[in-house]
């Protein structure tokens, strides 16, 4: 499906110093979930880099085993946080996957068809994506999904798909464009900032409430909010899956759709998208027409938590009712925070979401073990590598339940779904699974509760 390109290794074409940056000290090993799972160097960051370097040095071809290894990597980037040498694993990982796709070693008719449909058809066309979302909503809202599950019709999908079917996200009745105006003014007072909100793909269909909450908290903090209509996919799905050309094309479309000069910041509320969106400068660095704009884009790109802390967000006050003298003290809700890999490792935003969560009245933040470990969602990893994804999900759910928290905050739609499904399965029948929620939704609720 990718156009055949000349037989030049993408890894060999890469600046060699990026590969050399890895001095194989091994500091990455204990933080890499796949290495911890198998204990084999090939499944570790430095092992994978050694294979990439062997290809760049023409000591190894991009074989099938190499391809499988690159898709066994979660791309969680935990190694980049652990790496004292500052190896840019994100670039190596994306280049290696592009190399795998170019080699064609993993091609099968079924894989080709799925890749074309997802990467080149649905996620290149915002209207198609939303039409599919609409159909899915109808299927779910009409009760057909429930009926077909009850009748066991989902088994007709075949074993693999039937196993995945229960993970289908619940689609919202209204998508972001229906909930958010193109331009919304600050709640009160003068405009202090002007920002642009990106609504995402899965976020838009399954979590449009998160987008609404994002706009609400921005308005509470003196921001005028622009939300462009019918937004394109940011291209992170494509970049992470070795389709560089489509990723670049989508980045160009994003740049075409906005006037950067009029906004102070571009806001993303999904960890995975944000991590990719920040790197448009690198992605388009050799595109003469777009390079300069891409640099400005990357400079203005902010994760919502990061931006709120940067502009010194207003700390929500306890609800009016609890301030009445003699009223019973409000109860405390225990909450834990699961860090989206691409928020904490990809964007190095880790302190700010906690600052927001700690500011919430009546909430106690309980840290959970391995908060920065991948939950197994990792883009489409739970579909392509269900075993490892399941192992990680179980591990994560165990740590979450051990905190005794009734709320789990996380800031990425993939993690959100993975946790929700895992917690549902991990709790005994009748036991109430902790509720998964985006930190910004909690902040928006806290602002709303102030008014009683």
């Amino acid at each position, binding site marked *: 499906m990718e156009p055949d390109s000349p037989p030049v290794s993408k890894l060999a074409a890469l600046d060699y110093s990026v590969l050399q940056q890895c001095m194989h000290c091994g500091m990455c090993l204990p933080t890499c979930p796949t290495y911890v799972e198998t204990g084999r*160097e*090939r499944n570790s960051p430095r092992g994978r880099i050694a294979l990439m370097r062997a290809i760049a040095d023409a000591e*190894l071809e991009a074989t099938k085993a190499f391809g499988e*290894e690159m898709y066994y990597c979660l791309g969680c980037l935990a190694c980049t946080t652990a790496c004292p040498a500052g190896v840019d694993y994100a670039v190596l990982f994306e280049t290696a996957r592009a190399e795998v796709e170019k080699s064609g070693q993993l091609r099968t008719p079924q894989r080709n068809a799925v890749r074309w449909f997802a990467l080149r058809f649905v996620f290149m066309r915002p209207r198609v994506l939303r039409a599919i979302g609409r159909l899915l909503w109808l299927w779910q809202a009409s009760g057909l999904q429930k009926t077909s599950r009850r009748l066991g019709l989902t088994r007709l999908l075949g074993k693999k798909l039937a196993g995945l079917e229960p993970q289908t996200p619940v689609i919202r009745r209204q998508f972001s464009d229906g909930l958010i105006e193109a331009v919304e003014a600050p709640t009160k007072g003068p405009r202090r900032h002007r920002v642009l909100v990106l609504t995402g793909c899965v976020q838009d269909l399954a979590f449009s409430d998160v987008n609404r909450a994002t706009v609400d908290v921005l308005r509470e903090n003196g921001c005028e909010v622009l939300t462009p209509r019918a937004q394109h996919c940011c291209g992170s799905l494509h970049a992470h899956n070795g389709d560089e050309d489509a990723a670049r094309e989508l980045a160009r479309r994003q740049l075409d759709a906005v006037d950067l000069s009029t906004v102070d910041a571009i806001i993303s509320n999904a960890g995975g998208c944000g991590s990719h969106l920040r790197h448009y400068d690198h992605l388009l660095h050799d595109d003469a027409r777009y390079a300069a704009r891409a640099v400005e884009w990357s400079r203005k790109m902010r994760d919502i938590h990061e931006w709120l802390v940067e502009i010194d967000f207003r700390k929500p006050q306890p609800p009016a009712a609890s301030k009445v003298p003699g009223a019973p003290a409000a109860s405390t809700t225990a909450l834990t925070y699961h860090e989206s890999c691409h928020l904490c490792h990809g964007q190095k935003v880790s302190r700010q979401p906690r600052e927001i969560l700690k500011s919430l009245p009546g909430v106690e933040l309980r840290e959970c073990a391995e908060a920065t470990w991948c939950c197994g969602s990792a883009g489409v990893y739970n579909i392509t590598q269900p075993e490892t994804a399941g192992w990680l999900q179980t591990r994560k759910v165990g740590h979450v339940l051990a905190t005794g928290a009734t709320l789990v905050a996380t800031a990425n739609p993939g993690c959100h779904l993975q946790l929700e499904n895992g917690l549902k399965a991990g709790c005994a029948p009748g036991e109430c699974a902790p509720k998964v929620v985006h930190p910004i939704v909690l902040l928006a609720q806290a602002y709303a509760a102030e008014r009683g």
Partner: protein
Amino acid sequence: MPSPEFVAALKAALPGQSVLTEREDILPYGFDGTATLKGTAGAVVFPKDAAAVSAAIKLARTHRVPVVTRGSGTGLSGGSVPVAGCVVLCLVDMNRILELDAKNLTLLAEPGVITQRIFDTADAAGLFYPPDPGSMKISTIGGNVAENAGGLRGLKYGVTRNYVMGLEVVLPDGAIAWLGNKCVKDVAGYNLRDLFIGSEGTLGVVTKVLLKLLPKPAARQTLLATYATMDAAAETVSAIIAERIIPCTLEFLDRRTLRCVEAFAKVGLPTEAEALLLIETDGHPAAVADEALRIEAICARHHALAVRRAATPEEAVRLATARRSAFSALARLRPTTILEDATVPRSELATMIRFISAVAKKHRVEIATFGHFGDGNLHPTFLTDERNTEEMHRVEAAMKEIFEFALSLGGTITGEHGVGLAKKGFLKQQLGDASFGLLKTIKRALDPEGLMNPGKIFDLVETEATPSVPHGA
């Protein structure tokens, strides 16, 4: 490459244990933590117990295949870099802690247990395992024993050797031997246990380690002192020792190292200083308080720009962890980072530091220096590019001068990293003919076929007339 018969026999002898032979699987076992050294194994196996190790060694002997033992591959002298076509015994699957004996203060572990886990297990029982090599989060205890690893606490607590009470080893003929026991005193026969500590896999394979633990110090205090010159920092160290204070840790970072570490760890190190000392005192609370005060006064007397105490135990741990990242963090500056560990008697520190600066200037090479000042163990680190042949020649020339100067001061070519491949060209010069010859006599007696990690520490048959640095070769 090992023959298909050998591989088939290995697989049959080690049922249920991985035997890797595919290129993609074994290429990542081609190196350890040492720059520019690599080799390609013929097979990598993961034995689960001493019997499997013994079986693999016997087979290797029958088929005359060299054996290289490996843990997590974090070594810094190339000790576990494979010899072409060898079989690598990777011991990471032997990772159980077998016993913590609180009555005798010992811990028995398999060789693949991560050093940090030994520390944590002891700590949870109110005990203390002091050796803390920079890679302790990753390194295995077996590797620590094989290389006799040091760490930040060497000054007061010594190195791995000082904590090994017993070893189970598989000998080159496949026999399994126990060396040592839980007795504090034991003078029965030659001290063979000590022969295997630091033997770098050339005499046999360690399959169990019996470690000595200490009571956990009741208190500790970390101090940071900054200086405008490296000399002032070195003089402070000499003064602390001269005043009969032995801190647990006495670490030094130069400006380059400081900046790289701070860029990575972001723990608030003062990056404008020329030199920094990280000092930790531990022990009885009253002694710690007294020592901390005296150290502060000594630092002030020796023109420290500022002396600061870590506010909390967590901050102290963060600072020590940041320091452990120094070597890797230096890799930010240039493509190739070559770490050395020339060590001199403590009284010669300032002389050695000045010499390193002069050599760097003379050969126009970039050297960052950090290390364990308290025990004279320096880490001059060359920041270079292995693809620049001309520059690599200058690096080699500078390195040779540093080794020779360290020896002239009564020092050693390696304080804690081992000889491996990286420093074997200088060993004879340090040891002298008689003691160097003794190494060979021992090796020939235990491993007559020369199959255990051949070519590490020294060559049985010397081919080169003059010592050379194998880096970049």
